[in-house]
C-alpha cells in the first residue's frame, strides 16, 4: 500500500487499525468521500434507515460486545440525527465513536447546504469531540477518539470531518503516541482508602453492595461476585447493572429504586453501610435524596471523580477502575480475615430473607384474561434457559423486563437507562445481534417505542441480522398512562395508541420479517417457540397485552424510598402531593 492517500482512505485505514469490523451509518454529500474507500475495506457497513437507528445500533453493539461501536453520518441533518444516541451513550457510559461529514472548511460558517455546527451541538453530548482541519491529523485524531471512548469512564466521542479534508491528500503515518496531559484516568485505588473501606465493611452490621452499570463496563462481574461472597455482602444491581451479579445468587437482591424490588430498595434504606461500586446515585435509585439510606455510611468507588459526592457525600471515596479496586478490596479483605470467615450478620440476612418472603416480585396470569407482560417475559426466560441478550425500550415493558428476567451474565441486558430513550430497542437489538451473531437477541419493546424506530427492521432483514422483537402491545404509552392514572385523576391525555392500531404482523412482513401474533395467554408459548425456531430472519411478535396493567413496586418520583407502593391498593391519596419529576 502506498503511503500517499486521501483523508478518506486514511480514515478507513485508521478505523481498520483500531480493529473495527462493522460500522452503522447513512451516507450523504459531505461524507461521500469516506464511503468510497469503505467499499474496498473489510469493514462491514450496515446501512441504517435513520441515523438515530445507526447510533443506537452502535450502542447496542458496544453494550453487547464491550468493544467500541462506530456510527457514521453525513453533515447537517445526518449529524443532528445522531445527537440522541450520543447523549444516550453519554448518560450510560457506552463507548462509541461517531464519524460525521462536514461541509468544506472554506464553507464553514457560511450557512452552506447541509451545514450544522456539529462540533458545538455535540459538545455537551459527548465525552470529547473533534473538528479535523488537516488530513494529516487523521491518524492521531482517530487513535485518540478510540482511546477516549474506551478508557476511564467510557463514553461517546465525535469526529467531524469536512469534505475537503476527506478529499485532501496526505501521507499515512502510524499515529504518534497519545499526548493528553489533562487526561489521566486513575486505575488503582488509593491503598489507604481501600484499607479504610475494609475497616468500615468489617464494622458494619447491615451492609449493602450497591452496584451500577460501571461494574459491567469495567468487566468486573467476576470480581464483584468474589468480593460479595468473601465479605458476605448482599448485592443490589441498579437498572444498568442487571447481570453484574447472577440473580440466582443467594446474595443478589435484584434491582432497587423507583420500580425496584421491595427488598432491594428497603435493604438500602435500612443499611448502615452502602458500598457503591460504579453507581451514581441516580434519582431513580435514591428517590428523595435527603431521606435516602439515612443511617448509611458510604464507600463510593468510581472511575469518574466527579460522581463521588455529587449526590451523596462519600465517607470513603475511592477513585479508580472498578475491576482493579474490587481486586484490591479482595486482597485486603483476605489478609484481614486471614483465612477466617467474615463476620456473621445473621440478623441482617434473616431480615432480608423475611422481606424477600413477604414482598416477592410476583404477578398473576389469569388463563382467560388478557396477556400479562410479566408472563411473556417469564416464559421467554424459561424457554431460552435465560440464554439470551435482552434489549428493552423505555416504559412499563422495560421495567417488567428488568424485574422478571433472571440475569445471570453481564452484557446480556441492553437498555437506555440514563436518557430513557424511547425507540432504543429495535436498533440496539440489531446492533447487538450484529456483534453477537451466535446469541439469541430478543428485544422486549413497547408499542409506542416500536413505532418510533421500527424501520430498522428493514435494515435487519436486508443485512441478515435476525434479531427478535416482542412488541408489548398494550395500546398505550403505558408508563405515562400509569402516571396519569395515579397522579392525574385518570385524565388520559395523549397516551392512547388505539385510535389506529397498525397491524404489526403485516408491518413485520412488509419489512421482510416474520410476523406472529399472540392474543390470548395460550398463544404466548407457541408464539415464542415459533420465534425461537426461526434463525434466518428477524421476527416480530405482536403480544396483545393487558391495557390496564401497572408496574409495581413503585416509589413516587421525588418521594422517599421508605414508601414502597406494592400495589394499586396502597396508592397515595390523589389529592396529596403531586410528582414533580418527569418520566
Amino acid at each position, binding site marked *: 500500500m502506498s503511503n500517499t492517500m486521501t483523508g478518506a482512505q486514511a480514515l478507513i485505514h485508521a478505523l481498520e487499525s483500531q480493529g473495527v469490523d462493522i460500522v452503522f451509518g447513512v451516507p450523504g454529500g459531505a461524507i461521500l468521500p469516506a464511503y468510497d474507500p469503505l467499499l474496498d475495506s473489510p469493514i462491514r457497513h450496515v446501512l441504517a434507515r435513520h441515523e438515530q437507528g445507526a447510533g443506537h445500533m452502535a450502542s447496542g453493539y458496544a453494550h453487547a460486545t464491550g468493544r467500541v461501536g462506530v456510527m457514521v453520518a453525513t453533515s447537517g441533518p445526518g449529524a443532528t440525527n445522531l445527537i440522541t444516541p450520543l447523549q444516550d451513550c453519554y448518560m450510560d457510559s457506552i463507548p462509541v465513536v461517531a464519524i460525521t461529514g462536514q461541509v468544506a472548511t472554506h464553507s464553514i460558517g457560511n450557512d452552506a447546504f447541509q451545514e450544522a455546527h456539529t462540533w458545538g451541538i455535540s459538545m455537551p453530548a459527548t465525552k470529547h469531540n473533534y473538528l479535523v482541519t488537516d488530513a494529516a491529523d487523521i491518524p492521531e485524531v482517530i487513535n485518540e477518539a478510540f482511546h477516549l471512548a474506551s478508557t476511564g469512564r467510557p463514553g461517546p466521542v465525535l469526529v467531524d470531518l469536512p469534505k475537503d479534508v476527506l478529499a485532501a491528500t496526505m501521507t499515512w503515518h502510524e499515529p504518534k503516541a497519545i499526548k493528553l496531559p*489533562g487526561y489521566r484516568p486513575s486505575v488503582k485505588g488509593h491503598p489507604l482508602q481501600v484499607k479504610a473501606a475494609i475497616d468500615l465493611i468489617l464494622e458494619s452490621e447491615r451492609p449493602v453492595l450497591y452496584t451500577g452499570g460501571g461494574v459491567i463496563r469495567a468487566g468486573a462481574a467476576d470480581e464483584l461476585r468474589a468480593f460479595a461472597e468473601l465479605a458476605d455482602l448482599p448485592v443490589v444491581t441498579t437498572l444498568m447493572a442487571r447481570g453484574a451479579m447472577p440473580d440466582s445468587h443467594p446474595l443478589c437482591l435484584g434491582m432497587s429504586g423507583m420500580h425496584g424490588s421491595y427488598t432491594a430498595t428497603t435493604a438500602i434504606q435500612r443499611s448502615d453501610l452502602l458500598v457503591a461500586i460504579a453507581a451514581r446515585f441516580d434519582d431513580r435509585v435514591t428517590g428523595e435524596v435527603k431521606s435516602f439510606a439515612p443511617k448509611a455510611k458510604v464507600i463510593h468507588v468510581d472511575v469518574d471523580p*466527579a460522581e463521588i459526592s*455529587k449526590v451523596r457525600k462519600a465517607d470513603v471515596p475511592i477513585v479508580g477502575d472498578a475491576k482493579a479496586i474490587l481486586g484490591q478490596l479482595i486482597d485486603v479483605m483476605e489478609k484481614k480475615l486471614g483465612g477466617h470467615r467474615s463476620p456473621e450478620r445473621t440478623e441482617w440476612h434473616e431480615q432480608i430473607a423475611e422481606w424477600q418472603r413477604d414482598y416477592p416480585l410476583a404477578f398473576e396470569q389469569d388463563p382467560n384474561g388478557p396477556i400479562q407482560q410479566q408472563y411473556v417475559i417469564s416464559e421467554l426466560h424459561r424457554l431460552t434457559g435465560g440464554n439470551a441478550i435482552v434489549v428493552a425500550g423505555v416504559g412499563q415493558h422495560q421495567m417488567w423486563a428488568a424485574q422478571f428476567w433472571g440475569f445471570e451474565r453481564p452484557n446480556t441486558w441492553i437498555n437506555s437507562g440514563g436518557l430513557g430513550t424511547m425507540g432504543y430497542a429495535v436498533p440496539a437489538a440489531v446492533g447487538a445481534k450484529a456483534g453477537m451473531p451466535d446469541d439469541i437477541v430478543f428485544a422486549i419493546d413497547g408499542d409506542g417505542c416500536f413505532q418510533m424506530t421500527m424501520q430498522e427492521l428493514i435494515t435487519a432483514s436486508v443485512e441478515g441480522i435476525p434479531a427478535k422483537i416482542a412488541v408489548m402491545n398494550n395500546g398505550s404509552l403505558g408508563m405515562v398512562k400509569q402516571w396519569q392514572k395515579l397522579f392525574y385523576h385518570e385524565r388520559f391525555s395523549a397516551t392512547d395508541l388505539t385510535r389506529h392500531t397498525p397491524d404489526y404482523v403485516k408491518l413485520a412482513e412488509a419489512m421482510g420479517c416474520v410476523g406472529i401474533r399472540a392474543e390470548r395467554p395460550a398463544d404466548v408459548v407457541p408464539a415464542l417457540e415459533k420465534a425461537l425456531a426461526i434463525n434466518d430472519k428477524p421476527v416480530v411478535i405482536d403480544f396483545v397485552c393487558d391495557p390496564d396493567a401497572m408496574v409495581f413496586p413503585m416509589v413516587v418520583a421525588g418521594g422517599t424510598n421508605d414508601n414502597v407502593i406494592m400495589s394499586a391498593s396502597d396508592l397515595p391519596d390523589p389529592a396529596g402531593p403531586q410528582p414533580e419529576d418527569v418520566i
Partner: protein
Amino acid sequence: MNHVINVQVENKPGVLARVASMFAGRGFNIHSLAVGPTADPEMSRMTIVVDGPEMEQIIKQLYKLVHTVKVTELSPGQGIEREIMMVRVNAEASKRAEILEAAAIFKAKTVDVGLSTLTFELAGDPAALGDFLELMRPYGITDMAKSGRIAISRDVKTNGKKGRLRSA
C-alpha cells in the same frame, strides 16, 4: 461567596467554549472569566471567579474536560488578584480638581479628558477598584469597562528551601 480558580488548559481551539458550555450545562454561575497565555505556549490560563457553593463539583467537572490540565482554587489571601478598569465620570469644571485629587489617591491614571468628563484607568486589587467606583459614583459614571479577574498564587517565602514556581 466568590471563589477564584485558576484553570490551566491546553491551548486548543474551542477550549473556552468547552468550559463555558460545561458551566452553562451544569447550572454553575460564572462571575468573571479571563483567558490568556501562560509561560508555556501550549497552555492557556483561565482565571474564573465563581459564586456558588458547589466548588468541589465545579473543580471536578473542570478536570473532566479532556483539555483541562490543572485546576487550583485560590483561597482568600493565598492569591494575588488583579483587575483593570476604565471609568468615565462627569467632571464639570467646578468638580475637576476634587475628582483628580481622589484619583491621585488611588493612583488612577487619567487616560482621556473630554469637555465635561474625565476617564481614568485603574489596575489593582479588585477591592480597591470597587472603592474607587463608589467614590466616583456621586459624580455620575457615564461609562465603564472592566476586565475579568486574573490571579496568581503567592510563592513560597521560607528561607531554607529555594522558592520554586508553583503552577497555579
